[in-house]
């Protein structure tokens, strides 16, 4: 289906798509690196910095427990922040491109429904 293949290449090369990809990758890749490093730090401290993890902060609550709970907090925060970022920065662009593709894809609609997988 050369017509729709051409269409996808055209969209892929477009300014607007480059913008969407840039905004997406600029967010998801550094965030992934950040939370994996943050998690690795926690696991490494659990393995090698036992004295530090054992320091008591309030009553019986020690650094290890607080660090563990902070992993929960950071996970919730990243999830929440990503959903806001995506709704504001990614979804409108994706919708625009989607609409462009739909409008221009009338003649190739029949060939795209199976995703070209057959």
């Amino acid at each position, binding site marked *: 289906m050369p017509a*729709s*293949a051409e269409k*996808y*290449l055209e*969209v*892929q090369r477009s300014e607007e*798509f480059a913008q*969407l*990809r840039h905004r*997406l990758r600029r*967010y*998801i890749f550094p*965030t*992934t690196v950040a*939370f*994996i490093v943050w*998690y*690795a730090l*926690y*696991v*490494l401290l*659990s*393995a*090698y910095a*036992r004295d530090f*993890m*054992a320091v*008591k902060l*309030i*009553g*019986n*609550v*020690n650094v*290890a*427990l607080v660090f*563990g709970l902070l*992993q*929960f907090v950071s*996970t*919730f925060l*990243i*999830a*929440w922040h*990503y*959903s806001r970022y*995506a709704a504001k920065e990614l*979804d409108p662009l*994706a919708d625009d*491109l*989607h609409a462009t*593709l*739909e409008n221009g*894809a009338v003649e190739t609609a029949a060939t*795209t*429904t199976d*995703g*070209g*997988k*057959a």
Partner: protein
Amino acid sequence: MAPQILAAEASASGSRTLTITLFLVFVAITLGITIWASRQTKTATDFYAGGRQFSGFQNGMAIGGDYMSAASFLGIAGLIALYGYDGFLYSIGFLVAWLVALLLVAEFLRNSGRFTMADVLAFRMRQRPVRTAASVSTIVVSVFYLIAQMVGAGALVSLLLGIKPDTTFLGMDANTAKIATIILVGALMIIYVTVGGMKGTTYVQIVKAFMLMTGALIMVLLVLAHYKFNLSALLGAAAEQSGKGSAFLEPGLRYGVETAGDAAKTFYSKMDLLSLGLALVLGTAGLPHILTRFYTVPTSRIARKSVLWAIGIIGTFYLFTLALGFGAAAIVGGADITAQDKAGNTAAPQLAQQLGLDYLGGETGGAIMLAVIAAVAFATILAVVAGLTLASSSSLAHDFYASVIKRGNASERDEVRVARYSALLIGAISIALSIFAQSLNVAFLVALAFAVAASANLPAILYSLFWRRFNTSGALWSIYGGLASAVILVFFSPVVSGSATAMFPDSDWHFFPLSNPGIISIPLGFFFGWLGTILSKETDPEKYAELEVRSLTGHGAH
């Protein structure tokens, strides 16, 4: 002193009857839903993807239902009850893992695939080899996981129903009861999947997640009330009761154990901790039964929303297990837990019984709480095995039968019929393997399933979605390479032979020192994917353009 389960035979038999009654009520409700769902299941989309009509909250609950296995509920609570802080390490890995699914996988998979993981992997590759590979790794991951759950169910039933080695239940001794449980669980999961398809299975997950969260919440509130909502007091009591003092609240009793005077052993133990941590955090987004969940919602936005709900539900649940584990350590006590089960799997039910005894009207209250939590545990196992069976039979039918054998020329009707037979076949094989394995220690299979998912599936998924150059050869290398690395390393590790807790404790052919292969096999999976790719000249920029545009915009999504 806390009484052990069954200390009083009279209340025990009452509790046992109640457990069975509650469990039968759950089975009756879920079978009713399954039959209702079967009437709504007409197309392949209904069978594989539940008609793609679930809401974000419904699918989030169902993801929680698929993910919070008995290993999470009973296993982690037990680990914390016996080893304190180290059980918490597990929960954290299991939770943080969801960020990989949220940021890198869920939406793109939903936009570009149809029914299975292989839809995305094979998108721009040669269909037959890639679908075969994806099908193999899907079935390996799911069946390993399945066997661990079913063997666990067999072991649990005698504990939860209190069948001791020298007593009988309905004329069955403990061993017969184990086998009967495995067959019963297997038969029910086959019915859910073949009759209800994804729609029925999803509702089973939702009901189970609701029961599990409610049961856990009640226990958590009672535990916290017992310590007047003072976390420090709960921790202090747990540490004191454990007999290990403040070490109980610190990492190191179970993972990364320091053996004085044995530097090598200490080193390997710590490497094992890092390896486990890596497999936990990278495995989730490669589990086929989790990936297929993203297809049950109408759009990628709702897939995103369902992951957000799942993170909230699963995170809350793991915070609950923290209170349950320390609560069991403080209120029941380690000695009474190990007297019941050495692995600590009965910590949560024992805690339930004690809380009922103290706060909900004595003996009767204790029996009721025990019965409720035991029934929740059974429901948990049943729902998880159903999800696993569905994912593997979908892959067998959609990837292997329709694309490889029939070369894409199977009718929808035909494909769904094959999917139902596949569920029967996979279910029957799992029952047989589980019965064979029930006397062996197969707890490591869950960790192995995560390691294979992280080493074989995740590299292939990420390269597929984000690397233009990736090709058929790369996909095959990463799947088979990652799969083989993980399985071979585990086969030669101390969990299979050469240690007291091994699957075959009397033999010794191990040479790999770690029980979790992740730290080696995950980088190998990524490396093989890269190597396989550059060794082949194949590239298809047009298909990558289609995949990239569709995965980011949702154009042409099913």
